């Protein structure tokens, strides 16, 4: 598998055609997509035309940009102008956004070739991509198993070589968890580092767009393209983002890294063993690694399922049949709303809308939403304390390796526990990266997670690159 860094370098230099690159990836799609179902929509014709345009520009002496000719897959909750954007939900049936998400515009402007829209849990609600209205995605390493979720399609697309890079969104672990289960790199940037404009919202205060890649360097390349201020997103950090690609070789000499004790509890031994191995590797590379307690992280899961569902109940109200997407007729407007939403949303989405509506209701607000906000504050404070003594934190990404399809669909709470190690970073708004670090039983990938304080992506990438080198 050729890296995105190499593809872009070769295409810019005229050493390889973008068309050749895209054909290689499209033939991979032709080979396994029917089995894996990573995509809701493959944009083969558009990808070929886009690649030809890149080649024409290179021939004309232009520089198409840092992602020249790199095939990129987009999670289907990123708006693409004139191209269906479904969030893997029936309720958005037939809807074509009139605009590109900021991140989509940025990867296009950087010369990337969009190869398709990837499958996901409906509205990004889930941890296995089994909550898609269009059927599940399967794990390229073992098609009887899930790829993780909610960005399972993006993770599988990169793991299967369907795309060199992919974009996903991470609200509670939806990039890092599938990246770990599919054996690719996944990054959840600092909240506000990457524009959310055009990302269909699940939980606005937690959602963040980020890269999937086959290597740490490829992830840095894509993050450098999508990061940076966007005036269309009021929560966007109003200053330039530093380059992560530039620091990959800087090493970890002198960095203080804490292994989060609470996040190792209840973790499968084979996963915990890889975290220990990663800690040892970083220590050997010159970092000072030791165990640290961040007690409030144990509050994260319950706080998350109040806050995320509360925001979702409001964000998803607009899917009412009045303006776009699915409409199921009713005798009056209220009946139309009910019929449309009953038919358009899947069970997990309905469950979360009801949970969130309840959490915000008069008389319950303070006990649920208010309490969860206070827990969120405690988690942020706990991280602040930890980061006073450590530059980075180390943790598992997921409690287990990829689980079989259907294993957790009957019990939502068990499914929710898949995100126990990833949710704290979303609540704090901090960056975190999932780096593949070996295999478990059955050859299934295991990832380790590096957590960093807000806007410390460069430090995080130094450690991720060092970890990756330690495997070589």
């Amino acid at each position, binding site marked *: 598998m050729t890296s995105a860094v190499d593809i872009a370098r070769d295409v810019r230099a005229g050493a390889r055609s973008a068309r050749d690159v895209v054909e290689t990836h499209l033939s991979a799609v032709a080979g396994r997509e029917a089995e894996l179902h990573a995509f809701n929509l493959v944009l083969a014709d558009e990808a070929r035309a886009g690649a030809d345009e890149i080649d024409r520009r290179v021939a004309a002496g232009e520089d198409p940009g840092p992602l020249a000719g790199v095939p990129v897959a987009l999670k289907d909750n990123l708006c693409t102008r004139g191209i269906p954007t479904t969030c893997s939900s029936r309720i958005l049936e037939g809807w074509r956004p009139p605009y590109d998400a900021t991140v989509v515009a940025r990867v296009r402007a950087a010369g990337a070739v969009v190869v398709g829209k990837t499958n996901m849990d409906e509205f990004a609600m889930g941890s296995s991509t089994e909550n898609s209205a269009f059927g599940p995605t399967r794990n390229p390493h073992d098609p009887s198993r899930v790829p993780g979720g909610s960005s399972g399609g993006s993770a599988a697309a990169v793991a299967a070589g369907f795309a060199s890079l992919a974009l996903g969104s991470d609200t509670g672990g939806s990039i890092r968890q599938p990246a770990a289960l599919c054996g690719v790199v996944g990054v959840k940037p600092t909240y506000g580092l990457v524009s959310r*404009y*055009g990302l269909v919202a699940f939980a606005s205060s937690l959602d963040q767009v980020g890269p999937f890649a086959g290597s740490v360097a490829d992830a840095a390349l894509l993050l450098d393209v999508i990061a940076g201020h966007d005036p269309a997103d009021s*929560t966007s950090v109003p200053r330039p983002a530093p380059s992560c690609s530039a620091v990959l070789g800087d090493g970890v000499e002198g960095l203080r890294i804490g292994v989060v004790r609470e996040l190792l509890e209840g973790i499968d031994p084979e996963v915990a063993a890889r975290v220990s191995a990663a800690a040892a590797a970083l220590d050997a590379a010159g970092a000072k690694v030791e165990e640290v307690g961040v007690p409030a992280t144990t509050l994260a899961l319950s706080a998350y399922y109040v806050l995320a569902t509360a925001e979702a109940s409001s964000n998803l109200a607009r899917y009412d049949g009045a303006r776009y997407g699915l409409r199921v007729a009713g005798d009056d407007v209220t009946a139309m709303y009910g019929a449309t939403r009953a038919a358009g949303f899947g069970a997990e989405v309905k469950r979360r809308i009801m949970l969130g509506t309840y959490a915000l209701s008069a008389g319950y607000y303070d006990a649920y939403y208010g309490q969860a906000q206070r827990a969120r504050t405690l988690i942020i404070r706990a991280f602040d304390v930890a980061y006073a003594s450590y530059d980075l934190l180390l943790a598992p990404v997921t409690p287990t390796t990829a689980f079989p399809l259907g294993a957790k669909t009957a019990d939502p709470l068990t499914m929710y526990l898949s995100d126990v190690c990833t949710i704290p970073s979303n609540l704090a708004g901090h960056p975190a990266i999932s780096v593949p670090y070996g295999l478990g039983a059955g050859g299934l990938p295991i990832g380790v997670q590096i957590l960093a304080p807000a806007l410390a992506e460069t430090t995080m990438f130094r450690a991720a690159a060092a970890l990756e080198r330690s495997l070589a």
Partner: protein
Amino acid sequence: MTATTATEWEMVVGLEVHCELATATKLFCACRNAFGDEPNTNVCPVCLGLPGSLPVLNRHAVELAMRVGLALHSSVEPSLFHRKNYFYPDMPKDYQVSQYDEPLNVGGWLDLPDGSRVGVTRAHMEEDTGKTTHVGGGGGRIHGADHSLVDYNRAGVPLVEIVSEPDIRSSEQAKAYVNELRAILVAIGASDARMEEGSLRIDANVSLRRPGAEAFGTRAEIKNLNSVRSLGRALEYEVRRQAGRLEAGEPVVQETRHWNEDEGRTSSMRSKEEAYDYRYFPEPDLVPLAPSDEWLAGVRAALPVLPADRRVALAAAAGVAGTDPAVATVVHLGLDDLVLAAVAAGAGGRLALNRAANELAHGAVPDAAAFAGVLRMEGDGRLTATQAKAVLAELVASGGDPEAIAKAKGFEALDGGVVAAAVDAAIAAAPEEWARFVAGEAKVAGFFVGKVMAATAGKADGKAVTALLRERMADR
């Protein structure tokens, strides 16, 4: 129920006024904020609430909202936007971005021309909804309509909602409050405040209590008040309705009521139990709004003098009470600078106020020096009131010099002897009326004034004629 019933109850009213801000663009997007354009032409992904779109706060809207707050003597404070969640087709996102427990403008008051003061609870920012037209059946309401059309041009237009304290005690005071508020909003450039275009909309909270009682009664909220006149009528109706219930021993129900202008009555829309649970929570797509001290100071410095302060200054200069109706009229007409200039140039304050209020209410405004000149001539007795008004009308229509106009109209003051001779002739010609006047029938003076006016072709000064009549009576 009788008319006297209502007077045994005290009306307690608080008003919620929604005011569209006069920005060029909407609150959270770059779409035009304009009334009367083709439906759904001023729309974009943001104000249509399309998936993935995000709001960006319009700085000018915040500035206008701050002006409103400062004009109402509110404290401008760091604030938050919240989402108000409810389903309705004219709300693209099925939530409205509004302010809840941390509004931009907190507290304040409004001084009315009659000298009363109405407290302001808050003036917060929010986005307007689209406009729904219900077609067929249902009498223009959603229930029973065949279908409904929505125009999203108005969706996302910036609003300020000004909530008064329950300080209003009469329909007249309520109307005066709205008129004063409109004058302020226009004066500070915050809004065109046109009720007929919906840029100013009123909800009224009404309850009754016995005079002297401290506790408030149960209130009803009245919606769909589309003019100041409707407000007055609806309050009068609601007072009679609530008084009728209370006197019959029935409680007033806390509910929202709809004013029907054609029927002249309110009807129940929804009860407290049916009230929406709006599930307010902080809007995560926007950051907290905390205007800097510099920004606030700049807005404050640019604020024009407000109507209440102009009334105080005008009344002081004219030497009349602040509550004098002519003072309010002159300020409302924007003629206070003209009157102040005339007074400074030696015109009488009362005369200047009255002439401005009554003679200049329509049409053009005369040159300040000329206006002062006419008033001085009238004050000196060189022009009668009738003549002065005629000269003023000519000044307004064509301009010119008042002396020259008076001369051209033949308004030169008559020789005192001519008037005296005419008075004597009139007395001699009507001994019977003279006897009645002497006997104390003062109104007969008008008869003699008329005769003298006729004899002098209207050039005599009525007051001078009356004075001469008194002189003759004393000299008898």
